[in-house]
């Protein structure tokens, strides 16, 4: 185990790939995929803080492993998420998906421990390339197109990161990945790159577009890494950057409206994920120790309950072939355990007391209150009620209860139930006993979530919101689930720009062809004229015999002589 101490955690995942390929497809491979995150987690748990595994590269020193409390908590939850995701995907026998999951988790963990921006860039692109295969693995035409859109945006984010790094290096002479202040073009580019992956408003649509297109298990794995890596990167690079407070607040707000009227439940969860990221981004923007602890702990809890929700909807998709709310309902009869796990996830994301969301989101809410941002605080409280509406109520209610769809699918496979059960256990355990999680956080915390005012306030908010839902349902005001899609900003690049380009290319093409026509007709006229003057039928082109040539020369000479004589 000596070698393990010196090995960057990400290399464990890369080194596992040849072993994986050497094994026959089947249980052994599935077991390896569970073993690797466990070993990685154990390594991260036991590593001392500090920077090691330095490598010389093109005259730069790359820090492959920077272990501190912030990177450790993200590294640990990524290992746990990889383990749970692979357990959920135990039945998958698709080498592409399995390797993608392995490289994806490895890249995300590598990025978290990157001590410099160049290493970060390599892993940043690694997550993009590995993860797209979880979408393409669906192997349909639509998945191919969706994956391409996803990949273009993810790769662009990496290219912008590289550009920012180069500018920053020219400016400061350092590639260290540490706290930055927005100002120069370099830092703004890095900020933008992080923002794209973090699904900032207007840069967010890749998330809702791509996650519902991935495979059943792929979406569960996708939901854990990319965006939380971006949250980590923002927390590392831009903690205390005030603009993030406002960006985050908008992020908590707008997705809840879209989630409310979306029919595909996996897309509802993608909107909901976006909203949860908003809370974390606000925490980063506030930037105090309490707020950053809130962000880190919320990311930890969020990865678990979000995975749990994606797992339960995924299990329904696996058994029924659809994840559309309009086609589902009443599944509790034959999938009661999945329904229960879904309810645990719903209670956790809604932040009911005794569930994980409650003990982590309160830190961020309190931080905005302590730093006196009343409007932001009010927005976050509203967004909390919004979370309840789509993730707390809509997902479990319209899938497992509500009107009976008549579907009687079999309960989820055992390994899926196991994965959901363990995840649900963590959701409850963190909620009931948050101290071990608090101990992992970047700063020493003295925070008590279970005060009377916290508990009663939160219960009031949630129960009255539930009551509002019940009233709206009974009065028929609540919008029904219908088969339709909703436009979002991706309309710009999926419909508007292609149309504009098509229009433009049509116009340009017309101008070009009429230009060509006129040139052609002019040329034709010129050729005709030339032919008329110099063609074989005309006088100028008549062949001459040598005799007549000599005669004409003699005549010419004679004329010259006469002219000379006269003059």
């Amino acid at each position, binding site marked *: 185990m000596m070698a393990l101490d010196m090995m960057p955690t990400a290399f464990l995942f890369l080194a596992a790939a040849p072993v994986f390929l050497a094994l026959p497809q089947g249980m052994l491979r599935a077991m390896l995929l569970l073993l690797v995150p466990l070993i990685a987690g154990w390594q991260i748990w036991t590593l001392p803080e500090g920077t090691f595994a330095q490598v010389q590269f093109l005259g730069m020193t790359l820090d492959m492993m920077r272990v501190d409390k912030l990177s450790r908590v993200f590294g640990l939850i990524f290992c746990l998420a990889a383990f749970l995701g692979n357990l959920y995907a135990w039945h998958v026998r698709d080498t592409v998906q399995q390797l993608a999951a392995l490289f994806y988790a490895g890249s995300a963990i590598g990025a978290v421990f990157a001590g410099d921006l160049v290493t970060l860039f390599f892993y940043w692109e690694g997550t993009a390339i590995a993860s797209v295969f979880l979408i393409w693995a669906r192997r349909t035409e639509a998945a191919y197109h969706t994956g391409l859109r996803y990949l273009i945006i993810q790769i662009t984010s990496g290219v912008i990161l590289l550009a920012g790094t180069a500018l920053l290096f020219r400016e400061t002479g350092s590639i260290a990945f540490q706290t930055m202040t927005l100002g120069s073009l370099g830092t703004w580019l890095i900020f933008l790159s992080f923002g794209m992956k973090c699904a900032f408003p207007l840069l967010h649509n890749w998330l809702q577009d791509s996650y519902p297109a991935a495979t059943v298990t792929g979406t569960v794995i996708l939901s854990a890494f990319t965006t939380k890596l971006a949250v980590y990167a923002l927390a590392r690079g831009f903690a205390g950057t005030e603009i993030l407070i406002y960006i985050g607040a908008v992020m908590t707000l707008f997705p809840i409206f879209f989630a409310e009227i979306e029919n595909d439940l996996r897309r509802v969860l993608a909107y909901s994920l976006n909203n949860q990221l908003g809370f974390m981004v606000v925490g980063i923007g506030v930037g105090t120790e309490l707020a950053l602890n809130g962000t880190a702990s919320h990311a930890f809890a969020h990865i678990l309950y979000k995975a749990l929700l994606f797992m339960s909807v995924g299990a329904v998709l696996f058994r*029924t072939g659809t994840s559309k709310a309009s086609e589902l309902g009443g599944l509790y009869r*034959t*999938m009661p355990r999945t329904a229960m796990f879904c309810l645990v996830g719903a209670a956790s994301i809604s932040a009911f007391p005794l569930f994980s969301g409650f003990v982590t989101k309160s830190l961020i809410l309190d931080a905005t209150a302590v730093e006196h941002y009343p409007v932001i605080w009010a927005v976050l409280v509203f967004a909390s009620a919004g979370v309840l509406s789509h993730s707390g109520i809509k997902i479990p209610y319209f899938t497992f209860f509500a009107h009976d769809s008549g579907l009687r699918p079999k309960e989820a496979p055992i390994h899926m139930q196991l994965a959901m059960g363990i995840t649900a256990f963590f959701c409850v355990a963190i909620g009931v006993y948050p101290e071990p999680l608090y101990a992992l956080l970047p700063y020493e915390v003295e925070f008590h979530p279970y005060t009377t005012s916290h508990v*009663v306030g939160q219960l009031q908010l949630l129960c*009255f*919101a539930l009551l509002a839902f019940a009233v709206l349902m009974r009065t028929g005001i609540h919008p029904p689930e219908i088969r339709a899609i909703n436009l979002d900003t991706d309309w710009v690049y999926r*419909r508007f720009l292609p149309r504009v380009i098509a229009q433009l290319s049509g116009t340009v093409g017309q101008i070009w062809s009429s230009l060509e026509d006129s040139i052609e007709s002019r040329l034709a006229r010129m050729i005709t004229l030339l032919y008329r003057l110099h063609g074989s039928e005309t006088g100028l082109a008549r062949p001459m015999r040598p005799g007549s040539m000599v005669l004409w020369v003699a005549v010419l000479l004679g004329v010259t002589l006469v002219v000379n004589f006269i003059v």
Partner: protein
Amino acid sequence: MAQSPSENTDTHPVLGRILGWVDRPGSANRIFWALVVLCGGLFLADFTYHKHGHFAVENVPGFYGIYGFVMFTLLILVAKTLRIFIKRPEDYYGKAAVDSEDYPAAQLEKVDHDGA
């Protein structure tokens, strides 16, 4: 294709049959009124302890309840209005989007609870 009265639920998992209570006649009403009572209780609970919120508005009894009820209702109404403008048919983006496509059946295990 709703549950017919003659449907044999004996083959359903035990937990599913227990949960079946929610679909019995009158259960929905019972749940609703239980929720009303719970909300009333929570509202009254605000008078039993000293509140020390960061903002003055937090000290108003039932603030969170009222805020939650009003904002939730607003959210639904705004979302419902939004839908009028942005709703499109499922095949709007054609073959380049998964919305109008069936999930490939080969990657699923569509089985009914009774094995059918």
